[in-house]
C-alpha cells in the first residue's frame, strides 16, 4: 500500500500542533482528498437512491484505510482528522466550483435539465458561501474556525475535537459557540438558514 505508507510517513513528521506545521497538512490533504473522493463515491453507490453523504463515516473510513495505526505516532489522529476535514471541505468546494463553472460556462440547455439541477446549484452556492466565511473566520479566529471545520466537514463531536486539538471540551464549546455566532452574523439570516441543523 504505497498510499498508506506515504500518509503514515507524513504523519510521522508532524510536530506538536497543526497550526505550527502547515507543511504537513499541505502534504497530507491531497493524499486524503483522493481517497475521500473515492470513498464518497463508493458510499453513494452503496447508498443507492437514498442519497446522503455521511462525512463522519467517510473520514473514519479514510483513517482506517490510509493510516497504519501501529506505525503512526501518537497524536497523528489529530493531524489526520484535521487534514481529512480540510480535504472533505475541499471535495465539496471543488464540486461546488465545478458546478458553478459548468453553469456559467455551459449555456447548456439541451436535454433534460430539471429542477434537480437548480437544487444542486443552490447547494453549491451554500457550500461556497460557507467556505468563504470559514476562511475569513480563520484569518482572525483560527481555532474557532478549525473547530467548526472539523464539525462541519468531518462531523467530529466535542469530545473528539477536544482530544484532537488537545484543549478542554469547554474551550471547544466556547469556540463552537463563537464560530457559530460569527458565521451566522456573517452569512446573514437567509444564508444561515440554508445550513442544516447539527446532529
Amino acid at each position, binding site marked *: 500500500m504505497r498510499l498508506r505508507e506515504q500518509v503514515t510517513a507524513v504523519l510521522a513528521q508532524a510536530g506538536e500542533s497543526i497550526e505550527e506545521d502547515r507543511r504537513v497538512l499541505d502534504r497530507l490533504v491531497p493524499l486524503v482528498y483522493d481517497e475521500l473522493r473515492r470513498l464518497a463515491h463508493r458510499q453513494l453507490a452503496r447508498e443507492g437512491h437514498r442519497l446522503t453523504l455521511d462525512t463522519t463515516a467517510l473520514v473514519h473510513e479514510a483513517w482506517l484505510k490510509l493510516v497504519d495505526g501501529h506505525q503512526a505516532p501518537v497524536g497523528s489522529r489529530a493531524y489526520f482528522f484535521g487534514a481529512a476535514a480540510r480535504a472533505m471541505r475541499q471535495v465539496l468546494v471543488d464540486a461546488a466550483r465545478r458546478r458553478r463553472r459548468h453553469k456559467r460556462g455551459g449555456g447548456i440547455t439541451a436535454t433534460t435539465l430539471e429542477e434537480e439541477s437548480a437544487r444542486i446549484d443552490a447547494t453549491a452556492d451554500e457550500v461556497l458561501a460557507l467556505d468563504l466565511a470559514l476562511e475569513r473566520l480563520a484569518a482572525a479566529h483560527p481555532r474557532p474556525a478549525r473547530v467548526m471545520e472539523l464539525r462541519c466537514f468531518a462531523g467530529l463531536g466535542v469530545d473528539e475535537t477536544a482530544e484532537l486539538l488537545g484543549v478542554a471540551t469547554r474551550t471547544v464549546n466556547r469556540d463552537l459557540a463563537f464560530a457559530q455566532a460569527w458565521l451566522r452574523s456573517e452569512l446573514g439570516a437567509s444564508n444561515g438558514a440554508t445550513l442544516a441543523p*447539527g446532529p
Partner: protein
Amino acid sequence: MTMPPEPDPTRLEELFATALELDHDRRAGWLESACAGDQLLRQRLDQLLAASSGEELSAIDPTRAARLIESNLQPEPEEIGSYRIIDRLGEGGMGTVYLAERVEGGFEQRVALKLIKRGMDSDAILARFQQERQILARLEHPAIARLLEGGSTTDGRPYFAMEYVEGVPITVHASERRLSVEAILELAVEVCDAVQHAHRNLVVHRDLKPSNVLVTSAGRVKLVDFGIAKLLARDEAEGSDATVLGARALTLDYASPEQVKGEVVTTASDVYSLGVLLFELLAGCSPYGAEPSSVEQKIRRIEEGDVPRLSAAARRAHPGEHGRALARRLAGDLDAVLAKALARDPARRYASAEALAEDLGRHRRSEPVRARAPARWYRAERFLRRHRLGVALAAAAILALVAGLAGTAWQARVAARERDRAESHAARAEAVQDFLTTLLQSVDPYRTGGAPWTAEELLDRGVERIDAGALGNPLVAAELLGVMGGVGRSLGQLERSETLWRRSLALRREQLPGSPELAEGLRGLAAVLYIRGSHDEAEALLLEALELERGRPRTEPRALARTLEQLGVLLHERSQHAAARAHYQEALGLLRTVAGDTRAETAGLLANLGGLHQAAGELEAAETLQREALELELAVLGPAHPGLAVTMGNLAATLRQRGDWEGAERLHREALAISRAALGDEHPEVATKLSNLAAVLRSRGAHEEAAAVFREVLALDRKLLGERHAYVAFSLDNLAGSLAELGELDEALASFALAHEILRESRGERSVEVASNRVSTAVALALAGRPAEAEPLLVTGLELYGETLAPNHPRRARAIAALGAVLVDLGRDGEAEAHFRDALELRGQARHPETVAPMVGLGRLLLRGRALDEALALLESAADIARETLPGEHVDRVGAELALASALRARGDHARGAGASQAAHAALSRGIGPRWQRLRAELAATGGS
C-alpha cells in the same frame, strides 16, 4: 463593500464567552464596564450575541451534499457502451445526460446519452426496455428525437442513447424570440402532431415539459425522452419511498391530475401536459400560478384546482396595456381550447393531441372551435340550474336543433352525388352552430355579469343579430330563422314564431326550391299555424311539402313521416278520422324502414293514433296505444320532459272517459306538474293541462275548483292565443258549464253565447265543437229551470253529433241523457223514458259514473209508473255504480241514494229506506247549485225526513 474593522480577536472571543455565560439582565451592565467605551468592540459583541441563538450550524444538508458530490465526485465515464463521452450536458432526477459519439462505418453519430443514476431498479428498467424497444423504434417522426439504443454499463447502470438535439426548451425559445401568439400556436400544432404520431404508435410520453420539448436553432420542434418515463416508472409496490415521491415531484408542474393521483395514465394525460405547456407559453405563467409552492400544495392544486381562464391569467401576468391586449387576443376561443385541454376529467379533454391541434388550426383559420361545443352544453346545464326550467328548455331546444342540424349534415355527407350540397349544408350547420353559441354565451349570466336573460330576450337578441345581417349567407339566415321560429313555438310565442317561419320560408322558397329544406320550412310554418288555428293555410303548406317530398327520389323517410303526421293531426282535428289514421299508419310504416332510433317519433304517432281511437269512443284501444306511447316516451325522453306530459294528459282524458276519474285526476295533476316545471306557467301546453284537470274536477263534482281553474285557463288562452281562438271558446264553454252547475246562470249563458260565436267562425256552423256548445248551453238552461229553451238546442246538438261523431260516442250518450232529463221536466215521460233507455244502451254494460244520472232518471220514471221491481233493481244498480265510481258528496251519488230510498219506501222497506236517505242527508245540506236545490226540493216534496 468594505469589511468593518475587527476588534482584537482574542479579547472578542473571551468577552463573548463570558457574556454568553451571564444572565440576560446582568449582561448589559457587565458589557458596559467590560468594553470600557470601546464602541467597536461593544458593537461587534452585541452583533455576535444577537446571532448566538438559533439553530446549530453543523454541516451542509447531507442529502443535498450527496447530490452535489455525486454530480461532480465520480469521474466522468470516458465510454459508455460503444459511445465515447464528449461532454456532460446536464443531470436530472433520473440520471446524467452526456453528449457522446459513436463511430460506425466511418460515420460519426452524435447522441444524447442518458445514464440512469444508481438506485433505480436497473434490471426492471432494462426488462421494460426490451419490451418497449420495438414500439419505441417505430417512432419515426421529424419532431421526435429517436431512441437509438439502450443498454447497461459495466457496473450495471442502464443507459439510453437518443438522437442528439441542439435546442432550447420551448419556453425559453418563446421568451427569447418574443414569439407572437400566432407563432406559438404554430409551434404548438407541430408539438401536437408529434405527440399524436407517438400516440398512434401506442406510446405515451408521460413527462411532457419544456425541457422535453425543444426547439432547434432552425425553429423546428423536437421532442425528446419519448417513452422514457414509462421505462423508468417504478412499480407501485416499490414506489413508496421519499425519493420516488421526490422524483415524481420534479415534473409535477406539468403532470395531469390522474398522474398525480397515481391513476391510469393515458394519451389524455399527455393532452393535459400539452395544455399546461401551451397555457404557460400563451399566458406567460403556469396555470397553477407563479409562486413556488410545496409538493403537497401542488398536488392538491392539480387534483382539485380549477384551472383559471387563460385570458384572465395572462392579464394578471402582464401589467398594463400589453396585458389587456394579450387577454383580449386570448379570450374566447383559446380560453375554451385551454379549458378543454386542461379538464380535470380526462373524458372531458380533447380525445387526442390531434383534436387539440385541429382546434388550434380552426382558431387560426378563424373557424369556430370545437372546444366551445361542450362548453355550450356545460353552460346549458348551468342555465338549467339557474333559470326557470322553461327558459332553460328554450336553450336546450336550440341545442337540440343544432344537434339535429349536425346530424342531417352528416347524413347528407354520405350521399356522394350530393356532395357539394352536403358540404354547403355542413358549412351552414357550422355557421348556425357558431351563431347560436355566441348567442347563448351572450345570455349566460356568468358572462353578462348581470341579471339572467329571459328566453324572450334570448329570442329578441337572436332576431336582432339576424336582422343586423351578421350572417351574410341567406341560407344560413333561413336556417337560423327556422331555428328561432322553432324556439319561439316552444316558448309559446306563436305570433313571433309565425313571423320568423314566414321569413325563413320565403328565403327557402327563393334559395332552395324543391329542396328538403323547403319542405322543412313548410312544415315549420304549418306547425305554428296549426296551433294558431289557421288550419286551412297549414293544410295547404303540408300538402305542398308532401307533394315535394313524394316527388323527390331520395326523400328521407323521417322527414316524410313528419309531414304525414302533421297532416294526420290536422285531419284528426277536422274529425276526418279515417284519413288521419291512414296518415299516421303510413308514417309508422316509414319509421320502421329507418335504421336509427325512432322511438320518440313512433311514440308520438302511437299517441296520436290513440287519440283517434279516443275521439272515436274506442276507449280500450285508445288506452292501450297511449300507454304504449307513454312507455316509449318515458324511455326516450326521461320522466321530466314536457312531451311526456302531452301523452300523459291524453291518457288521462281516456281514463276520464272510461270513468276512472280518480286515475284521470292523478295523471292530469302529474302531467300538469311536468309541464309547469318544464315550460313555466304561461304556456299553451300548461293551459291544456289545466283545462284537462278542471274537466276531471267537474266530472267529480268539484265545480267551484273546476270553475276557478277554467278561469285560469281562459285567461291564459286569451293571452297566448288571442281573443278569438277556438281554444278560448272551449274554455268559455267549460267555464260556463261549471258556472251553470254553481247556479251562476247569467254569466254562464253569456259565456256560452260568446263561445258559440267564436266556434261558428273558427270551426264552422256544423262542427262538432258547435254541437258541444249547444248541448252544454241546453244543460245549463235545464238546470236553470228553462227546459223549453233547452230542448231545441239539444235537438240541434244531437243532429250535429250525428253528422260528426260515431253513433256510440260518449258525448252523444251524454246529450241523449240530458235530453231525457229535459223531457222529464217538460212532463213528456214516455219520450223521456225512451231517451234514458237509448243513452244507457249506448253505454253498454260499462259501469260508468255517467250512467248513474240516466239510470236514476229512468228509475224515477218507473217508480212513478209503479213499475216497482224494475225501478228498485235499476236504482239498486245505480247506487252501486255510484258508490263504486263517484265521490261520497257527488250530486249524482246522493241523488241515486235518495231515489233508492224512495223506491225502498215505496216497496214498504222503511228501515232500509231511512238508512239510505240518512247517508245522503249530510251531503245534501252542504251541496251548492241548482242540482242540489232540486234534490232538496224533491226530498221536501216526497216528505222524506
